[in-house]
């Protein structure tokens, strides 16, 4: 067994083990939480190992089996997947710490099921990241949909059950009605679903067929929250904040855009993408979504809802980059997955920390909190800058690459939409900072802490780390992009 195979097995095994042990130790919360954290840390190291192996030129591979001819369950890491795996596993380690802090702080019910499902979701994310073909990716994609449903419906009341219905209905519905036929059609046209450098379908399909397939994939991967299949994301905000932070800022939505990115890069390839008329329509749609979702975000008084709509806009950046599908665009899109992941998870964690400490969710109530929770709000500032694409955060670089390639690819509307959305970000995130950190004179005193001592340390430390990470990405974006560009070197 090679080192790569062991790493892949570990990447799937560690969260699986974490899920199982969560049930085994459900009567001993301390042991359970320790086990979860240990598994998460192991996974983070494994994720890093996968990334460094990939970038060292030895992509880990593992063939599990072939359930049906042409459809193999197989894993193979290329730079895009390695980046996603490393990011998800790293953030997962922080999130599990944060989740423990949050869940204990907020005294939530059914914690064991929560952690188990979260762990299974992580298995699915790793599976998606490492998939060697669209079939494997699809399999884990669906596992992710199913395993996160209990997390959304966690509270079990009518509201969260309804949200869960919307969530699973849209995600599963879109994937079985659109992505699955797309998958079958791709397998039919190409004879397999393997991810091939330069595009599996290159030279085999007409622009019309390619258009249909592209539409099936882009809308089928509804986790990417592309209009009009975005409705699940705001409604999923009823879930506990760690879920919003990890899944709806990072894992689930990124799985959606990752699917699209992988498909446009390795299934369609830049030539097919450029020739298909659907690409143009979708670029226009993505541009519209970017602006529209940012505008909607401004109207939302609740912080998590604002962040959710902001996520919808930011995902459209990545989808836009994926659609352009040239080297720089894909690199930028992948980089944006990374930088937005760090930025948004920080913001969500901040929202959660504020909630645990004060019970507040509405922005207008947060006046003056900046003085009382300095770490949280400085992290929030960093996250905001990252979303706006301002230095010194990595968000700048991904936006830089995306905008440049959009202009270059003859899609200036996408670039302008990104500019507009960055400016609108000032208006949907700026007020939070203004109200909290620079309350106008004569405003009332800040709201009291609901919980003695404010947010627990376990809920604050991870967000500080991710904020530092968002800044570090400003300096590390270059190396990361170089790793990604290796993906084009192999052509």
């Amino acid at each position, binding site marked *: 067994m090679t080192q790569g195979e062991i790493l892949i097995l570990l990447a799937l095994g560690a969260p699986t083990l974490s899920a199982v042990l969560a049930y085994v130790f459900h009567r001993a919360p301390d042991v359970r939480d320790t086990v979860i954290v240990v598994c998460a840390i192991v996974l983070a190291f494994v994720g890093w190992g996968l990334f460094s192996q990939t970038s060292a030129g030895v992509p880990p591979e593992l063939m599990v*089996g072939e*359930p*049906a*001819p*042409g*459809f193999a*369950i197989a894993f193979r890491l290329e730079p895009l997947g390695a980046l996603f795996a490393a990011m998800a596993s790293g953030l997962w380690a922080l999130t599990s710490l944060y989740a423990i802090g949050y869940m204990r702080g907020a005294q939530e019910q059914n914690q064991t099921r929560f952690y188990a499902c979260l762990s299974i979701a992580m298995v699915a994310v790793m599976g998606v990241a490492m998939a060697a073909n669209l079939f494997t990716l*699809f*399999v*884990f*994609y*669906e*596992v992710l949909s*199913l395993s996160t449903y*209990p997390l959304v*419906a966690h509270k*079990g009341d009518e509201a969260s*059950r309804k949200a*869960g*219905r919307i969530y*699973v*209905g849209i995600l*599963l*519905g879109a994937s*079985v*009605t*659109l992505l*699955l*036929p797309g*998958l*079958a*059609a791709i*397998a*039919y*046209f*190409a*004879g*397999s679903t393997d991810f091939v450098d330069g595009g599996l379908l290159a030279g*085999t399909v007409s622009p019309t067929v390619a258009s*249909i397939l592209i539409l099936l994939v882009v809308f089928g991967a509804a986790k990417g929250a592309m209009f009009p299949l975005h409705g699940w994301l705001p409604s999923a905000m009823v879930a506990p904040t760690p879920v919003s932070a990890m899944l709806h800022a990072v894992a689930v939505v990124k799985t959606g855009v990752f699917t699209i990115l992988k498909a446009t890069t390795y299934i369609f390839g830049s030539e097919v993408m450029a020739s298909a008329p659907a690409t143009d329509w979708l670029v226009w749609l993505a541009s519209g979504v970017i602006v529209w979702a940012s505008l909607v975000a401004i109207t939302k008084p609740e912080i998590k809802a604002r962040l959710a709509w902001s996520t919808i806009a930011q995902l459209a950046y990545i989808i836009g980059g994926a659609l352009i599908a040239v080297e720089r665009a894909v690199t930028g899109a992948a980089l944006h997955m990374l930088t937005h992941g760090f930025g948004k998870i920080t913001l969500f964690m901040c929202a959660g920390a504020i909630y645990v400490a004060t019970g507040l969710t509405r922005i207008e109530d947060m006046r003056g909190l900046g003085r009382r929770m300095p770490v949280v709000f400085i992290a929030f500032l960093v996250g905001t800058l990252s979303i706006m694409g301002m230095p010194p955060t990595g968000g700048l670089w991904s936006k830089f690459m995306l905008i440049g390639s959009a202009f270059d690819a003859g899609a200036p509307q996408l670039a302008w939409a990104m500019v507009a959305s960055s400016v609108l970000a000032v208006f949907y995130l700026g007020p939070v900072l203004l109200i909290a950190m620079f309350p106008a004179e004569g405003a009332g005193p800040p709201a009291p802490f609901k919980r003695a001592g404010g947010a627990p340390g376990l809920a604050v430390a991870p967000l500080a780390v991710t904020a530092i990470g968002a800044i570090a990405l400003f300096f590390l974006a270059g190396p990361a992009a170089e790793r990604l560009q290796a993906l084009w070197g192999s052509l």
Partner: protein
Amino acid sequence: MIGLEFLNIAPQRFAEQAPALVVVGPLIAACAAVLAPGRRWAWFLCVGASAFAFWMAVVLASEVARQGVISYAMGGFPAPLGIEFRVDALSAMFALLISGMAVLTAVFSGESLETEIMSSKHPLMQGGFLTCLAGLLGLVLTGDAFNAFVFLEISSIGVYAMIAMGGARDRRAYPAAFNYLIMGTIGATFYLIGVGFLYAATGTLNMADIAARIPTLTSDRSIEVGLAFILIGLALKAAVFPLHQWLPAAYSHAPSMIVVFLSATATKASVYLIIRYLSTVFAFDWQVETAFMAFVLAPLSVAGILICSMQAAVDPEIRRILAYSSVAQVGYMTLAIATATSAGVSAALFHLFNHGVMKAALFMAIGGAAIHLKSQRLSDFAGAAKSAPWTMTAFGIAALSLLGAPLTAGFLSKLRLIQSLVAADWGWAAAVIGLSSLIGVFYVGRIFEVVFFRSEPEGGSAVREAPVSILLPLWLLAIANIWFGIDATIPLGLAESAAGAVMGATTLSPAGAP
């Protein structure tokens, strides 16, 4: 081929008689079961006879795999005068499926009947079951058109009787059985009329002979009319929409045992006959046939898929939900068959097999729960996962399979179906399957939410964990659902070789592609 060849340990002479033994065994056991001194004996007989049939089916299948088509002259009278049993890969696959399901059903029946039927009637029930089994097995093995009618009726009579026996618990079973009787008889009569037409035109009842003689006849309307009658009759038996009216009532009111068995096999046997007639007796590329499939079978399938999925999505009773879903799934199969391609037939057979596995599991779990819960309302299953975790987890797995979730058998068969439809340039049909899957998300999601996420009613759920004799076959099926979702060698191999036997090799890629 099927991984069970090790069971083929019978002596050669014995193996040669397998086509007869596989039918005769259950038939004899049926008589014995009726006369059995007690319900336990009847149960043992039932399990034993089913197991024997399964063994013989395995033997048959491996013989078929070895030598291709087996022709067996019943009673030593050779065809065309005698009755010929003609076993090819298609027949062998069905024999395996039917007998395998029978074993599990037989095991399941012990505890299940306990609460549903008064114990004195158990032997009758088991006898009926074995009769039905014998009929179905004969149906898929025989090579004689009229003989097929006989076996069809044998199996049906057993079923009518067993459904009616559910009336002791649920009085709605009586009209259900009566309706089924009427409809089934209409179907059988149509079939018989069709065979009569064929006989009139060709002068033979042996399928192979009919097939051989048809090309020599020029424009004989009676062949075409015969075909129409046969297909309509069989479509009725296979519950093709809108000829399915008998099915939902029968499935929702009959004793669990028979529903488990029927859902996995009975309609499927008729599908077998449809394929048999379309491929072996008539030529698949005959324009009459393609016209029938494109303009009658396909529209009906699509209508059935959509309408019955909708009905399943809103029905309040859990067994009827599953029944409607069955009709929709039959629609999938006939839709794939209607493409008139080898890939389509193979996908249909693959789905047929997987559907049998998942539906049996679903009904078995409901039957297990029904031991303590008299109601069949979905809402009464609220929180069932808490009170009966093992039963309901197996149920959940099968439900996911029905939904077509990855890593379950249902996923692969759905993928295969769509692929075959795309390959036949029937993109719109793939879209229909997608749409019905969307509806499937709703009805399975509905069941899921109730079972797993709704809190238990006051005083706890009435659902209790099923006994081991039910859990065992149930979990066997649940694991099979997962296993066949990860490694589909067995069902896919069976389906491909079955389709290959009647259609030629399967291709799923456009020319030129790797």
